Protein backbone atom coordinates (compact mmCIF):
# COMPACT_ATOMS: atom_id res chain seq x y z
CA UNK A 1 0.00 0.00 0.00
CA UNK A 2 1.46 3.34 -1.05
CA UNK A 3 1.01 6.63 0.78
CA UNK A 4 -1.39 7.65 -1.99
CA UNK A 5 -3.46 4.56 -1.18
CA UNK A 6 -3.53 5.57 2.48
CA UNK A 7 -4.76 8.99 1.52
CA UNK A 8 -7.41 7.51 -0.77
CA UNK A 9 -8.50 5.03 1.92
CA UNK A 10 -9.28 7.95 4.18
CA UNK A 11 -11.47 9.52 1.47
CA UNK A 12 -13.47 6.46 0.46
CA UNK A 13 -16.18 6.96 3.07
CA UNK A 14 -16.87 10.55 1.92
CA UNK A 15 -16.62 9.39 -1.70
CA UNK A 16 -19.27 6.77 -1.01
CA UNK A 17 -21.52 9.45 0.44
CA UNK A 18 -20.90 11.75 -2.50
CA UNK A 19 -19.51 14.37 -0.13
CA UNK A 20 -16.21 15.09 -1.92
CA UNK A 21 -15.59 18.19 -3.99
CA UNK A 22 -15.33 17.75 -7.75
CA UNK A 23 -11.52 17.73 -7.89
CA UNK A 24 -11.10 15.23 -5.04
CA UNK A 25 -13.82 13.03 -6.43
CA UNK A 26 -12.03 12.87 -9.77
CA UNK A 27 -8.76 12.05 -8.05
CA UNK A 28 -10.35 9.17 -6.11
CA UNK A 29 -12.02 7.83 -9.23
CA UNK A 30 -8.82 7.98 -11.24
CA UNK A 31 -6.98 6.12 -8.48
CA UNK A 32 -9.67 3.46 -8.11
CA UNK A 33 -9.48 2.78 -11.82
CA UNK A 34 -5.76 2.00 -11.57
CA UNK A 35 -5.45 0.40 -8.13
CA UNK A 36 -7.05 -3.04 -7.61
CA UNK A 37 -6.24 -2.98 -3.90
CA UNK A 38 -8.17 0.27 -3.27
CA UNK A 39 -10.93 -0.96 -5.51
CA UNK A 40 -11.21 -4.02 -3.29
CA UNK A 41 -11.29 -1.85 -0.15
CA UNK A 42 -14.02 0.27 -1.65
CA UNK A 43 -16.11 -2.76 -2.52
CA UNK A 44 -15.78 -4.08 1.05
CA UNK A 45 -16.64 -0.70 2.49
CA UNK A 46 -19.72 -0.41 0.35
CA UNK A 47 -20.84 -3.92 1.26
CA UNK A 48 -20.55 -3.44 5.00
CA UNK A 49 -22.07 0.04 4.73
CA UNK A 50 -25.09 -1.35 2.89
CA UNK A 51 -25.56 -4.04 5.51
CA UNK A 52 -25.35 -1.54 8.35
CA UNK A 53 -27.82 0.67 6.56
CA UNK A 54 -30.17 -2.26 6.07
CA UNK A 55 -30.05 -2.98 9.78
CA UNK A 56 -30.57 0.67 10.74
CA UNK A 57 -33.56 0.95 8.41
CA UNK A 58 -35.53 -1.84 10.07
CA UNK A 59 -38.55 -0.29 11.73
CA UNK A 60 -38.56 -0.86 15.51
CA UNK A 61 -41.72 -2.24 17.02
CA UNK A 62 -43.22 0.48 19.17
CA UNK A 63 -46.77 0.64 20.48
CA UNK A 64 -47.47 4.06 19.00
CA UNK A 65 -51.05 4.31 20.29
CA UNK A 66 -49.92 3.54 23.80
CA UNK A 67 -47.15 6.11 23.45
CA UNK A 68 -49.68 8.69 22.29
CA UNK A 69 -51.81 7.99 25.37
CA UNK A 70 -48.85 9.23 27.40
CA UNK A 71 -48.05 12.15 25.15
CA UNK A 72 -51.53 13.56 24.66
CA UNK A 73 -52.39 14.45 28.29
CA UNK A 74 -48.92 15.91 28.81
CA UNK A 75 -49.24 18.36 25.97
CA UNK A 76 -52.79 19.35 26.73
CA UNK A 77 -52.00 21.77 29.53
CA UNK A 78 -49.14 23.13 31.60
CA UNK A 79 -46.60 20.68 30.25
CA UNK A 80 -43.55 22.48 31.62
CA UNK A 81 -44.56 22.32 35.28
CA UNK A 82 -45.67 18.73 35.15
CA UNK A 83 -42.51 17.62 33.45
CA UNK A 84 -40.46 19.53 35.99
CA UNK A 85 -42.25 17.90 38.89
CA UNK A 86 -42.01 14.46 37.43
CA UNK A 87 -38.29 14.80 36.83
CA UNK A 88 -37.87 16.10 40.35
CA UNK A 89 -40.01 13.78 42.37
CA UNK A 90 -40.83 10.46 40.82
CA UNK A 91 -37.26 9.27 40.42
CA UNK A 92 -36.68 6.30 42.68
CA UNK A 93 -34.29 6.97 45.48
CA UNK A 94 -34.56 10.71 45.07
CA UNK A 95 -34.39 12.82 48.20
CA UNK A 96 -34.70 16.54 48.75
CA UNK A 97 -31.61 18.05 50.32
CA UNK A 98 -32.47 19.42 53.75
CA UNK A 99 -31.54 22.99 52.91
CA UNK A 100 -33.69 23.01 49.80
CA UNK A 101 -36.57 21.52 51.74
CA UNK A 102 -36.16 24.19 54.40
CA UNK A 103 -36.20 26.93 51.78
CA UNK A 104 -39.29 25.54 50.14
CA UNK A 105 -40.89 25.05 53.55
CA UNK A 106 -40.20 28.67 54.45
CA UNK A 107 -41.63 29.81 51.13
CA UNK A 108 -44.75 27.73 51.68
CA UNK A 109 -45.16 29.18 55.16
CA UNK A 110 -44.70 32.67 53.76
CA UNK A 111 -47.43 32.07 51.22
CA UNK A 112 -49.69 30.53 53.82
CA UNK A 113 -49.30 33.54 56.07
CA UNK A 114 -49.48 36.17 53.38
CA UNK A 115 -52.26 34.67 51.31
CA UNK A 116 -55.14 35.97 53.47
CA UNK A 117 -53.70 39.50 53.36
CA UNK A 118 -53.07 39.26 49.67
CA UNK A 119 -56.58 37.94 49.22
CA UNK A 120 -58.15 40.90 50.95
CA UNK A 121 -56.50 43.26 48.51
CA UNK A 122 -56.80 41.32 45.28
CA UNK A 123 -59.11 38.35 45.20
CA UNK A 124 -57.39 35.17 44.13
CA UNK A 125 -59.48 32.81 42.11
CA UNK A 126 -58.29 29.25 42.28
CA UNK A 127 -58.09 27.53 38.93
CA UNK A 128 -56.96 24.09 39.96
CA UNK A 129 -54.76 22.03 42.24
CA UNK A 130 -52.54 19.19 41.10
CA UNK A 131 -50.62 16.76 43.20
CA UNK A 132 -47.98 14.14 42.62
CA UNK A 133 -46.99 11.51 45.17
CA UNK A 134 -43.95 9.32 45.35
CA UNK A 135 -42.11 7.10 47.79
CA UNK A 136 -40.13 10.04 49.12
CA UNK A 137 -42.99 12.50 49.56
CA UNK A 138 -45.66 14.37 47.73
CA UNK A 139 -46.03 17.67 45.99
CA UNK A 140 -49.07 19.81 45.57
CA UNK A 141 -49.30 22.62 43.03
CA UNK A 142 -51.86 25.37 43.18
CA UNK A 143 -52.40 27.33 39.97
CA UNK A 144 -54.02 30.70 40.45
CA UNK A 145 -55.91 31.97 37.49
CA UNK A 146 -55.18 35.61 38.33
CA UNK A 147 -51.41 35.54 38.45
CA UNK A 148 -50.75 32.26 36.67
CA UNK A 149 -48.03 31.85 39.29
CA UNK A 150 -47.92 28.28 40.58
CA UNK A 151 -47.57 27.77 44.34
CA UNK A 152 -45.76 24.56 45.18
CA UNK A 153 -45.84 22.58 48.42
CA UNK A 154 -43.34 19.80 48.87
CA UNK A 155 -44.07 17.36 51.69
CA UNK A 156 -41.39 14.88 52.55
CA UNK A 157 -42.35 11.60 54.16
CA UNK A 158 -40.55 10.79 57.37
CA UNK A 159 -37.65 8.30 57.05
CA UNK A 160 -39.80 5.61 58.67
CA UNK A 161 -42.52 6.04 56.03
CA UNK A 162 -39.97 5.91 53.25
CA UNK A 163 -38.99 2.35 54.00
CA UNK A 164 -40.85 0.08 51.65
Amino acid at each position, binding site marked *: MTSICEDIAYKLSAYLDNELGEAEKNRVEAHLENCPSCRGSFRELKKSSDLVS*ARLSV*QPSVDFDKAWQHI*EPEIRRRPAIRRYLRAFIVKPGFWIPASAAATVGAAALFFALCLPVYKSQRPVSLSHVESVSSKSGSVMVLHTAKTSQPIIWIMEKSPKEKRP
Partner: protein
Amino acid sequence: MAAPSEPSDNELIKSCLSGSQAHARRLYDRYKNYVARVIRNMENDPEAVQDLLQQTFIKAFSGLKSFKGDSGFKTWITTIAVNTAKNYRNKKTRRGRHPKVSIDHTGEENGAALELKDESANPQKQLLTKEMGTVIGAALDMLSEEHREVISLWNEGFSYDEIGAMTKTLPQTVGSRLHYARAQLQKILTPYIKGNKE
Protein backbone atom coordinates in the same frame (compact mmCIF):
# COMPACT_ATOMS: atom_id res chain seq x y z
CA MET B 1 -43.45 13.50 2.04
CA ALA B 2 -46.94 14.91 2.28
CA ALA B 3 -49.35 14.44 -0.61
CA PRO B 4 -50.56 17.69 -2.23
CA SER B 5 -53.88 17.67 -0.36
CA GLU B 6 -52.18 17.03 3.00
CA PRO B 7 -51.52 20.05 5.20
CA SER B 8 -47.84 21.00 5.44
CA ASP B 9 -45.88 20.61 8.65
CA ASN B 10 -46.03 24.34 9.21
CA GLU B 11 -49.80 24.38 8.77
CA LEU B 12 -50.15 21.54 11.27
CA ILE B 13 -47.82 23.28 13.70
CA LYS B 14 -49.83 26.48 13.47
CA SER B 15 -53.03 24.70 14.38
CA CYS B 16 -51.25 22.73 17.13
CA LEU B 17 -50.27 26.04 18.63
CA SER B 18 -53.87 27.14 18.64
CA GLY B 19 -54.74 23.98 20.56
CA SER B 20 -55.73 21.40 17.97
CA GLN B 21 -55.12 17.95 19.46
CA ALA B 22 -56.23 16.32 16.22
CA HIS B 23 -53.49 18.08 14.31
CA ALA B 24 -50.94 17.25 17.00
CA ARG B 25 -51.87 13.63 16.43
CA ARG B 26 -51.44 14.06 12.68
CA LEU B 27 -48.00 15.52 13.14
CA TYR B 28 -47.19 12.64 15.49
CA ASP B 29 -48.41 10.10 12.94
CA ARG B 30 -46.31 11.75 10.27
CA TYR B 31 -43.06 11.46 12.24
CA LYS B 32 -43.52 8.61 14.72
CA ASN B 33 -41.86 5.89 12.62
CA TYR B 34 -38.98 8.13 11.70
CA VAL B 35 -38.39 9.30 15.28
CA ALA B 36 -38.63 5.73 16.61
CA ARG B 37 -35.97 4.64 14.13
CA VAL B 38 -33.59 7.47 14.98
CA ILE B 39 -33.96 6.70 18.69
CA ARG B 40 -33.61 2.95 18.26
CA ASN B 41 -30.45 3.56 16.25
CA MET B 42 -29.05 5.39 19.26
CA GLU B 43 -30.42 3.06 21.93
CA ASN B 44 -31.28 -0.63 21.56
CA ASP B 45 -33.43 -1.30 24.61
CA PRO B 46 -37.03 -1.49 23.23
CA GLU B 47 -38.59 -0.26 26.48
CA ALA B 48 -36.29 2.72 26.48
CA VAL B 49 -37.12 3.42 22.83
CA GLN B 50 -40.81 3.71 23.64
CA ASP B 51 -40.13 5.94 26.62
CA LEU B 52 -37.66 8.15 24.73
CA LEU B 53 -40.10 8.49 21.86
CA GLN B 54 -42.72 9.76 24.30
CA GLN B 55 -40.27 12.18 25.87
CA THR B 56 -39.19 13.45 22.46
CA PHE B 57 -42.73 14.23 21.33
CA ILE B 58 -43.68 15.77 24.66
CA LYS B 59 -40.65 18.06 24.46
CA ALA B 60 -41.34 18.87 20.83
CA PHE B 61 -45.02 19.73 21.36
CA SER B 62 -44.34 21.62 24.57
CA GLY B 63 -41.62 23.66 22.89
CA LEU B 64 -43.47 24.22 19.64
CA LYS B 65 -43.62 27.95 20.36
CA SER B 66 -39.84 28.14 20.15
CA PHE B 67 -39.76 26.33 16.81
CA LYS B 68 -38.55 28.90 14.29
CA GLY B 69 -39.38 27.03 11.13
CA ASP B 70 -36.18 27.90 9.30
CA SER B 71 -34.62 24.45 9.62
CA GLY B 72 -37.78 22.40 9.13
CA PHE B 73 -39.70 20.35 11.67
CA LYS B 74 -37.89 17.12 10.77
CA THR B 75 -34.47 18.57 11.58
CA TRP B 76 -35.83 20.13 14.72
CA ILE B 77 -37.45 16.98 16.10
CA THR B 78 -34.36 14.98 15.11
CA THR B 79 -32.20 17.21 17.28
CA ILE B 80 -34.60 16.72 20.20
CA ALA B 81 -34.68 12.94 19.67
CA VAL B 82 -30.90 12.64 19.47
CA ASN B 83 -30.34 14.77 22.56
CA THR B 84 -33.01 12.90 24.52
CA ALA B 85 -31.40 9.57 23.64
CA LYS B 86 -27.93 10.91 24.45
CA ASN B 87 -29.02 12.17 27.87
CA TYR B 88 -30.53 8.81 28.61
CA ARG B 89 -27.36 6.98 27.60
CA ASN B 90 -25.19 9.34 29.63
CA LYS B 91 -27.29 8.76 32.72
CA LYS B 92 -27.26 5.03 32.17
CA THR B 93 -23.48 5.03 31.81
CA ARG B 94 -23.06 7.15 34.93
CA ARG B 95 -25.23 4.75 36.88
CA GLY B 96 -22.94 1.99 35.62
CA ARG B 97 -25.78 0.18 33.94
CA HIS B 98 -24.35 0.24 30.46
CA PRO B 99 -25.35 -3.12 29.06
CA LYS B 100 -22.68 -5.58 28.16
CA VAL B 101 -22.91 -6.40 24.53
CA SER B 102 -24.12 -9.85 23.81
CA ILE B 103 -24.23 -11.41 20.40
CA ASP B 104 -27.40 -13.39 21.08
CA HIS B 105 -29.44 -10.59 22.54
CA THR B 106 -29.57 -7.04 21.33
CA GLY B 107 -33.12 -6.33 22.43
CA GLU B 108 -34.29 -6.52 18.89
CA GLU B 109 -37.23 -7.54 16.86
CA ASN B 110 -38.15 -11.14 16.45
CA GLY B 111 -38.90 -13.07 13.31
CA ALA B 112 -36.74 -15.10 11.02
CA ALA B 113 -35.73 -12.23 8.81
CA LEU B 114 -35.83 -8.50 9.17
CA GLU B 115 -37.51 -7.14 6.12
CA LEU B 116 -36.67 -3.63 5.10
CA LYS B 117 -39.20 -0.88 4.95
CA ASP B 118 -39.22 1.39 1.96
CA GLU B 119 -39.64 4.63 3.87
CA SER B 120 -36.01 4.86 4.95
CA ALA B 121 -33.62 7.24 3.31
CA ASN B 122 -31.39 4.44 2.05
CA PRO B 123 -33.78 1.74 0.97
CA GLN B 124 -32.09 -1.41 -0.13
CA LYS B 125 -34.35 -4.11 -1.35
CA GLN B 126 -32.57 -6.95 0.28
CA LEU B 127 -33.23 -9.26 3.11
CA LEU B 128 -31.08 -9.07 6.16
CA THR B 129 -30.83 -12.43 7.86
CA LYS B 130 -31.68 -12.44 11.53
CA GLU B 131 -28.18 -13.55 12.39
CA MET B 132 -26.60 -10.76 10.43
CA GLY B 133 -29.02 -8.26 11.93
CA THR B 134 -28.02 -9.40 15.40
CA VAL B 135 -24.31 -9.20 14.62
CA ILE B 136 -24.68 -5.69 13.22
CA GLY B 137 -26.78 -4.66 16.21
CA ALA B 138 -24.01 -5.82 18.53
CA ALA B 139 -21.37 -4.10 16.40
CA LEU B 140 -23.36 -0.86 16.54
CA ASP B 141 -23.56 -1.20 20.31
CA MET B 142 -19.78 -1.15 20.48
CA LEU B 143 -19.54 2.22 18.77
CA SER B 144 -18.98 5.33 20.81
CA GLU B 145 -21.95 7.61 21.19
CA GLU B 146 -20.58 10.14 18.70
CA HIS B 147 -20.06 7.48 16.09
CA ARG B 148 -23.46 5.99 16.65
CA GLU B 149 -25.05 9.39 16.34
CA VAL B 150 -23.49 10.17 12.95
CA ILE B 151 -24.19 6.70 11.61
CA SER B 152 -27.81 6.96 12.66
CA LEU B 153 -28.30 10.38 11.06
CA TRP B 154 -26.33 9.45 7.94
CA ASN B 155 -28.70 6.53 7.47
CA GLU B 156 -31.65 8.91 7.38
CA GLY B 157 -30.10 10.63 4.37
CA PHE B 158 -28.83 13.82 5.98
CA SER B 159 -25.78 15.48 4.44
CA TYR B 160 -22.58 16.09 6.41
CA ASP B 161 -23.56 19.77 6.65
CA GLU B 162 -26.97 18.92 8.06
CA ILE B 163 -25.58 16.39 10.53
CA GLY B 164 -22.98 18.96 11.57
CA ALA B 165 -25.71 21.52 12.23
CA MET B 166 -27.74 19.04 14.27
CA THR B 167 -24.84 17.77 16.35
CA LYS B 168 -23.06 21.12 16.63
CA THR B 169 -19.92 19.88 14.88
CA LEU B 170 -18.13 20.77 11.67
CA PRO B 171 -19.00 18.84 8.50
CA GLN B 172 -15.36 17.68 8.33
CA THR B 173 -15.72 16.22 11.83
CA VAL B 174 -18.88 14.43 10.69
CA GLY B 175 -16.95 12.98 7.74
CA SER B 176 -14.11 11.87 9.94
CA ARG B 177 -16.46 10.27 12.50
CA LEU B 178 -18.29 8.42 9.75
CA HIS B 179 -15.01 7.19 8.34
CA TYR B 180 -13.92 5.77 11.71
CA ALA B 181 -17.36 4.40 12.57
CA ARG B 182 -17.47 2.55 9.26
CA ALA B 183 -13.92 1.28 9.68
CA GLN B 184 -14.80 -0.09 13.11
CA LEU B 185 -18.02 -1.70 11.90
CA GLN B 186 -16.23 -3.15 8.91
CA LYS B 187 -13.58 -4.71 11.13
CA ILE B 188 -16.29 -6.54 13.07
CA LEU B 189 -18.45 -7.43 10.08
CA THR B 190 -15.89 -8.51 7.51
CA PRO B 191 -15.45 -12.08 8.83
CA TYR B 192 -19.25 -12.52 8.75
CA ILE B 193 -19.61 -11.04 5.30
CA LYS B 194 -16.87 -13.26 3.94
CA GLY B 195 -18.19 -16.32 5.75
CA ASN B 196 -21.86 -15.83 4.87
CA LYS B 197 -22.06 -14.29 1.48
CA GLU B 198 -20.61 -14.51 -2.02
